[in-house]
């Protein structure tokens, strides 16, 4: 493993020696290999993970090319796709993951268009004059002639305690013969109660995204900026990993795996619920 890493480091360092790659004419600065080594786009994360480009990233490999999804190429790439500086993932866990991904019988590849991955975006908004951070979950979906990112869910702190549905024998309710009175007692739910949600179905769950969009349409919420982005992947069977961007000196930078979890039965749902259901 160490030998592969050293080989890749030497390869990236040697890329700076290759001429004619720059966008500019003479006067361009030679990269010492750091930018070549950096996983500069999430697109590059996909390509490196799958072994679909050359080490310098200048050549895209397509099905039929001799190096397309080449085993040693993937092996080298996947090891540099981890946050190896600040990450707490154990070497054993990484090895198990890499072993599964590079399985000679059933290797795993990431697919941009397939389900099983999504983005988590932290964005700043002004809500009724106050600055608030919202967590948006976005996913890719087919639409029209191509694909688009769509907002799947939102978590917004000001909405956190708006709904607090009580349960059990202490809650307010509409008695079971209300229909005989033409539901005249709806007044209790909509006028007398401070918790109208107490009168909803036991499976009631507020749709925060709808409320968020409604407030936006009412000009109560105004977008300010994006402050953080990360991606969650469940595409490798039995594994979850998180990818985020590392902007720091050195060779281990760009979009890297920042968190890796081996999934036991039920773990996937728990993690998804944690990410989605943050209200």
């Amino acid at each position, binding site marked *: 493993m160490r030998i592969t890493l050293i080989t890749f480091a030497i390869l990236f360092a040697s890329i700076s020696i290759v001429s004619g790659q720059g*966008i500019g004419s003479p006067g361009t600065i030679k990269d010492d290999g750091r*930018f070549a080594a950096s996983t*500069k786009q999430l697109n590059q994360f996909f390509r490196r993970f799958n072994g679909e480009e050359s080490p310098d990233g200048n050549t895209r490999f397509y099905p039929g090319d001799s190096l397309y999804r080449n085993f040693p190429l993937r092996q080298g790439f996947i090891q540099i796709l981890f946050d190896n500086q600040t990450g707490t993932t154990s070497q054993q866990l990484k090895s198990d993951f890499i072993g599964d991904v590079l399985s000679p019988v059933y290797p795993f590849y990431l697919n941009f268009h397939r389900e099983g991955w999504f983005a988590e975006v932290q964005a700043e908004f002004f809500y009724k004059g106050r600055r608030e951070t919202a967590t948006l979950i976005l996913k890719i979906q087919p639409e029209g002639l191509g694909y688009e990112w769509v907002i799947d869910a939102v978590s917004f702190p000001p909405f956190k305690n708006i709904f607090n549905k009580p349960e059990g024998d202490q809650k307010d309710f509409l008695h079971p013969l209300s229909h005989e009175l033409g539901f005249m007692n709806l007044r209790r739910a909509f006028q007398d109660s401070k918790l109208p949600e107490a009168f909803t179905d036991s499976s009631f769950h507020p749709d925060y995204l709808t409320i968020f969009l409604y407030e936006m349409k009412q000009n109560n919420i105004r977008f300010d*900026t994006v402050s953080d982005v990360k991606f969650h992947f469940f595409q490798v069977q039995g594994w979850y990993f998180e990818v985020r961007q590392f902007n720091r000196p050195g060779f281990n930078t760009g979009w890297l795996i920042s968190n890796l979890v081996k999934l036991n039965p039920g773990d996937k749902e728990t993690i998804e619920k944690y990410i989605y259901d943050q209200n």
Partner: protein
Amino acid sequence: MIFNFARFHAALENKNKHMKNTLILFLGLFLASSLTALAQNDNISPARKQAIDSLALEKVKDLSKYISIIGSKETQFSEANRVMDRAEELFAPGAEMGVSSINSSEIAYYKVRRYFERLMALNYDRVNITWYDIQYISDLERQPDGRYVGVITIYQRFEGTSIETGMNYKDTTKKDITIYVEKKQTQIAGRTIEFWDVMLGDVRVTETSA
């Protein structure tokens, strides 16, 4: 042997039918392949992708050149304005620059023209903008409207010196530049020619630790 006309006719008819069927089959196959070719016309082959990458990179090079000219203190005001016009023409309408620094990951948004104007107004006596000899070009993904979109990543080094204060400011920024790729048509000598055009879109500017 008595020549059986009826059988001959029947055979001939059969042969004709067979030929007709074969002809229909061939025509069908030809049309199908033409239609497939037409349907596939909008798909981007690896060879075409490479050609589009080159075209996109040319536009990015032009942008880099324009940024250097706009940022240079030696450029006259009128000339800088003319170059800003040229640079703006590279972009799709409404394109924005999203800028963040090492200290803050929050993005400040500027319309392209405003970004150039800010660059021109920088209060340095000497400005030197250079580019690293490395870039990355993403795959092209198709949007709902049928256009393709990609991202080119480049790295820029900025160095500004103020003679009066002796202040010297340096930074290296990563620029992720959106490219829109669209098939267009033009008439040349009465003939309709199709070509792929590239426009630049939103640019994400991130200060790096390099």
